[in-house]
């Protein structure tokens, strides 16, 4: 494997260079959480790469909460922004991977997602300090990137230690080669230690694995367990809208001048009208059924299609839940 070292005093130059192509969103600490904040040369540069995934959902960048997918009758072209995401965590890469499968691998492909995805450069960062809400290790993910990003880096003493995963990533390294130096064996060793320690921390946070045959157990759950699991839920839907793998949407049409905009808006399967059909029949009239649909979607059906869970272990649903429902506890109970 080839590594490239970006010395600490060159990080700003790198980000500045990247920002010439389009906005760069880099991870910053604010009010105790990390956020992907747009780089602004006139503002202080305050990167924070050690913290866990951002508070916000990464899916905003690929599938915004509202985005135009067509205009008619005049078929105007819809453009996709060029953007760089800098400091994305491994769990969120799994989120992108899940979306890639749905929107790029499953026929027919979604040209709007494709355009956004192609115009986005993803630069991920190792995750040395997992939090109590994290459980990427329970869904088969390491706290560092192994694919999906264009570039990944580990923050070490002397700077950021990069590796490339894609052609796009290699081209960036080439373009900015003057900023990078050759790392030494000690740097690689340091990376190994950081990774090993992160994995150990995650094991300590989540000692218990999910049961074998989880997909089947979720499908065969008994009603009483579902009732208990959802008992405290206030149906705020925060777990759905903060989740990087929830992908449900609706198409809604709005008049705009002479043309009409077809807008894709996020939807959520906890809404009572979500699956209702013309005439008023509803396949999931009871909240228990809708509550469990989320689990079936992520742990049974997606697993049946792709042999990975549509859950990244990011823990956003746990940290955002008003009723303090922890998805791990529910899955451990099965």
């Amino acid at each position, binding site marked *: 494997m080839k590594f490239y070292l970006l010395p600490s005093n060159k990080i700003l130059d790198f980000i500045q260079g990247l920002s010439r192509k389009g906005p760069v969103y880099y991870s910053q600490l604010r009010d105790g959480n990390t956020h992907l904040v747009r780089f602004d040369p006139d503002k202080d540069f305050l990167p924070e790469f050690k913290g866990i995934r951002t508070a916000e959902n990464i899916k905003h960048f690929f599938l915004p909460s509202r985005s135009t997918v*067509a205009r008619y009758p005049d078929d105007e072209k819809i453009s996709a922004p060029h953007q760089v995401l800098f400091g994305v965590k491994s769990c969120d890469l799994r989120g992108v991977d899940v979306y890639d499968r749905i929107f790029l691998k499953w026929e027919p492909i979604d040209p709007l997602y494709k355009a956004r995805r192609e115009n986005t450069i993803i630069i991920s960062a190792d995750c040395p300090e997992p939090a109590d809400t994290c459980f990427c290790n329970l869904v088969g993910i390491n706290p560092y990137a192994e694919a999906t990003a264009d570039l990944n880096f580990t923050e070490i003493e002397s700077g950021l230690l990069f590796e490339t995963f894609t052609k796009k990533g290699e081209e960036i390294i080439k373009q900015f080669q003057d900023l990078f130096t050759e790392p030494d064996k000690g740097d690689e060793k340091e990376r190994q230690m950081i990774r090993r320690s992160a994995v150990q921390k995650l094991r300590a946070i989540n000692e218990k694995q999910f049961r074998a045959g989880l997909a089947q157990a979720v499908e065969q759950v008994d009603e009483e367990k579902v009732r208990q699991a959802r008992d405290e839920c206030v149906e705020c839907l925060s777990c759905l809208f903060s989740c990087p793998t929830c992908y449900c*949407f609706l*198409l809604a049409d709005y008049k705009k001048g002479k043309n*009409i905009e077809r807008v894709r808006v996020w*939807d959520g399967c906890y809404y009572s009208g979500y699956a209702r059909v*013309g005439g008023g029949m509803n396949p999931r009239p009871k909240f228990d059924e809708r509550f469990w649909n989320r689990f079936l979607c992520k742990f049974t*059906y997606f697993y049946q299609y792709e042999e990975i869970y549509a859950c990244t272990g990011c823990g956003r649903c746990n940290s955002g839940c008003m009723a303090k429902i922890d998805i791990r506890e529910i899955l451990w109970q099965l």
Partner: protein
Amino acid sequence: MAVINPYYPIPTKIKEIIPETPSITTFVLDGRPIDFSAGQFAELTVPGVGEAPFTPSSSPYAEDLEFTIMKVGRVTSALFELKPGDSIGVRGPFGKPYPLDAFKKKEIFIVGGGVGFAPLRSLFLALVHNIKHYKKIYIRYGARTPQDIVYKKLIPEWQKIDKVDILLTVDRGDDSWKGKVGVITVILDEIPVNVNSAPTIVCGPPLMMKFVTQRLVEAGFKDEHIYLSMEKNMSCGIGKCNHCRVGKFYVCKDGPVLTWKDIKDIEEPFI
């Protein structure tokens, strides 16, 4: 090659409007904005109002595209306000066609209820187009009252076609009605086909689907030969938005027709 935007509705004019029943109307579109095979469906857009999924009721070989639609809510009500010459949008075709090759040399048993005759008419016309390939076509159709029967003018013509056998029933008759009275299962007491080999194709309202399927299973049709149209909430039509899922199936992509074998383990699959 230009990338086709699957969310773009192709503007198409309404050519003719044919009232079928007090609540069901056939919309004939001008030409064929999309091609389709029997069983596939399309999303129709009423400009500025929105979309809903419908299956063409015309023959896949016909020049114009037709839809037979029941007025039930927001989009369909807006559609019923339109006049010949008005423009709508069409996206599709979506979903899988009926496996007509597998029906060859067989008796085909078609059961419909209410507006469920729409997709079945398209299937029927596709079969008739190549009638030499099939042994015989049976249609069993039920409506609430004689007034609610769709394609009233066409059915007598179809009855004259060789190798076609059509029986109708209405839940409630009137003075003019000379045919059978009773729910659809009254014309399913006698099943004149070889249930070991014949495919049976069903489309209708949820409760009708449930009872008819029960009856067909009881009559001995093979689970994998019972083809059922699934009405689910749909938005994208291309397996992305997740609305139409029933069990592990995306009805818009794996359906809209699934077999009883596919769905029999799902609790209340038709609702």
